[in-house]
């Protein structure tokens, strides 16, 4: 037991270091993309670029005879490091779980650990089907920041569970909430890129000199980014709805009422309403595109706020940060 409580943080710090390296590799990848995109443009004739711009402007030019298909080596390295980091991260989480003798999500330190583990897991699983490696910088950066914050500020020794947490709903409710957060984070990243891409498309349409960061040229068009963001957000929304319901069932058993506008309940509700608004915005004239992307960004900001500020600074029944 003693060894495990030492090994787990060591594994976690190793994971953080590898994620940081992955972040650097992905950052180089974005820089390289700008360069590749510039080279491709230099090689191709001007009118071809014009055609590309007219048809959305953001698709990678199909591999042509004049330019070899760009190979993003740094992205591959980033992804490989991400997988390696995830393995260490998983090991850290599992050893923590074994030494605690329970699921590893019962205080803020552990929430951060499982939440980021799921973010990376969802990202890596999605990579199998869709190439989202342009999100690698964001994912690796977010995970390094959250895990670093957790490991330095939120770390607590393994203590026995408080009575209200001794419930099967701890396993279900918290896990689903974390999983939902993972999907929201991907939707958030895509929405941010969507806004950048949409700005670039507008600048191209206005025939502006500068059109923003060069790596955007290798990314999908803004409407494509939007529909991908939407797909992640609706999965997150359904999981979040389930989180609300499961939490209410648990609250009924633990606190004697299914809903009481506890601080955490309130914020969970606020987030639910924001994402409900986001889904409606996608079906409302004048709200598709950028406005809905902003809602997705606001929604995820609320999720992060709910996870950090509300847990640490607000007084309420969800006082399970384990911090004193």
């Amino acid at each position: 037991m003693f060894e495990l409580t030492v090994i787990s943080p060591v594994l976690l710090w190793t994971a953080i270091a590898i994620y940081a390296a992955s972040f650097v590799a992905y950052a180089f990848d974005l820089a390289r993309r700008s360069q590749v995109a510039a080279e491709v443009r230099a090689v191709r004739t001007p009118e071809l670029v014009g055609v590309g711009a007219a048809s959305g402007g953001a698709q990678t030019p199909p591999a042509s005879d004049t330019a070899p298909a760009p190979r993003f080596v740094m992205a591959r390295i980033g992804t490989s490091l991400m997988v390696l980091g995830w393995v260490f991260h998983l090991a850290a989480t599992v050893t923590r779980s074994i030494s605690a003798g329970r699921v590893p999500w019962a205080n803020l330190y552990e929430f951060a650990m499982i939440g980021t583990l799921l973010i990376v897991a969802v990202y890596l699983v999605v990579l199998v089907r869709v190439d989202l490696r342009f999100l690698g910088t964001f994912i690796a950066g977010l995970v390094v920041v959250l895990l670093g914050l957790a490991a330095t500020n939120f770390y607590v020794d393994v203590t026995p569970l408080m009575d209200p947490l001794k419930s099967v709903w701890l396993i279900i409710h918290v896990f689903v909430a974390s999983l939902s957060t993972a999907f929201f984070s991907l939707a958030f990243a895509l929405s941010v890129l969507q806004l950048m891409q949409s700005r670039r498309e507008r600048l191209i349409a206005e025939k502006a000199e500068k059109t923003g960061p060069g790596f955007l040229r290798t990314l999908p068009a803004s409407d494509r980014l939007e529909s991908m963001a939407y797909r992640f957000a609706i999965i997150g929304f359904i999981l979040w709805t389930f989180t609300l319901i499961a939490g209410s069932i648990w609250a009924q058993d633990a606190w004697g009422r299914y809903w009481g506008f506890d601080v955490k309940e309130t914020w969970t509700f606020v987030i639910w309403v924001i994402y409900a608004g986001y889904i409606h915005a996608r079906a409302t004239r004048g709200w598709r595109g950028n406005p809905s992307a902003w809602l997705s960004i606001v929604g995820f900001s609320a999720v992060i706020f709910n996870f950090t500020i509300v847990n640490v600074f607000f007084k309420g029944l969800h006082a399970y940060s384990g911090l004193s």
Partner: protein
Amino acid sequence: MTTESTDPLRPSDHVDGDDSITQPRLGFVGWLRWGWRQLTSMRTALILLLVLAIAAIPGSIFPQRMADPNGVTQWQRDNPDLFPVLDALKMFDVYLSPWFSAIYLLLFTSLVGCVIPRIKHHAKALRSRPPRTPARLRRLADFRAVERVSTDAAADAASAVDIAQKQLKALGYRVERYDDKRSFSVSAERGYWRETGNLLFHIALVGVLVTVGVGGGFAYTGQRVLVEGETFANTLLDYDSMNRGRFVGDGALTPYSMRLDSFDVTYQPFGEPGSGQAGDFSANMTVSENGDERTGSVRVNHPLDIAGDKIYLLGNGYAPTITVRNAEGDVVYRNSVPFLPQDNNLFSLGIVKVTDGMPEQLGIRGLFYPTTGVLESGAFFAAYPDLTNPTLTLDVFEGDLGINNGDPKSVYVLDTTDLTQLTGRAVGKDSIELSPGETADLPNGLGTVTFEDESPEGATDMSQSVKRFASLQIHHDQSSVWVLVFALLALGGLMLALFVPRRRVWVKASAGEDAVSIEYAGLARGEDPTLAAAVDDLVAGHARLLDAAGVTAARPVAEPDDPAPAASDTPKVD
């Protein structure tokens, strides 16, 4: 338009209509209709949703009376100037406030107004047949064309569409044939569950709101503090406090009683991580109902069911037994007084009010330390929550307790306005200090006070010297299960509405000279990221079925592949 009125007969805020635009005059009904249309528009619903999200936030910033009444009192004490303003704005009752209610009622009105026409529309769609095949399928985004060799083109074209019709039907499409002389087509539509789920979700949300509202009228929640050995009878009088819905009559309570036999708790031992953390709470009860006695326990996450009521454990603490005797030695007060815990080590505060039998009324403010630690200054602190060396210190007050004029007074608060303090640091006299079993003299020869030792015979330590109390909540709400049912229906509806693709598909076969040309097309109705893949699957499946049935044959020469966009058109760059 200007807000300045030029006509002196008009009020200053009158706005003249802009004459440059001639609009049809709207009568009263017309305005109502216009207002209703505005309210039920998606844009309004969206804005109401966002306003609702923002309006809910103050309730997380300020303490709410419904969730944290003590927090409100504390806030009032800390911000006496700001409190009345914010209180008038209902910042401490956000979720019951008129403005919050207005937002969600408008939202739900908007929702109902939006859903009703959609129900009608959907009911019609459910009965109608898939629409006529468009003349030019080629114009649709997801279009595929195939040509197959045939010896009897006209007959083969018809059977190809027959096969497609069966295939689509098996895939869950609703199908309709539209044939003419040389061309045959099937029009198919699927995904009606998408709109059904959407409507179900919204109706279920209304169901949740109505059930919560109506169910609350039939619900009651009461609190009762029980000291070990005490019995509670389920009557209005026996509750410490009670909130009941407007439809709960006086006779609504089921008669039963329960006694707290003992209260179990374990603490993390000294020196271990989480030292002193309490857990495994269990209030062990004996329940009497209809003349039957049974035992049961109330634990966190495991409420006790009695006659449709649920009993929850809200809190616990120590209830030192205190006896006060007057100068003649008569017992004027004897009670196990629940002391309210003030910290995690159960440093607790309690009040004794002696109303009769003394020259003047007596108020005693007691501080209790289950495991007494002494600071360098000599002050006590609670070092551990379990009973190791308990100490009770008492400050005695004499005078008028202020309870004779009938004003309700909390038993946990001592109003010292009309009292004179006799012991305690404030008057420069030592507080009375007692260990279990000890007796001390009250000042001024008033009598004695005893901290009774409740340990059973033969006890060797202090661990049972003080009784414990359990704070119980008795909750009755039969609507909660219906709230859950509606919530789950909403979740189910949501999944249908977001994941079931609604799409139309057409297969059209036209007979040529020695060939049949078959066209396939798909049209998404709403979000449908997998449509292209679905059309591809349809084409491939149809070809297999045609081959198997021997209807027409694939062209021997490989045609240039129609590059069908994959489901994911993200550039694969590698």
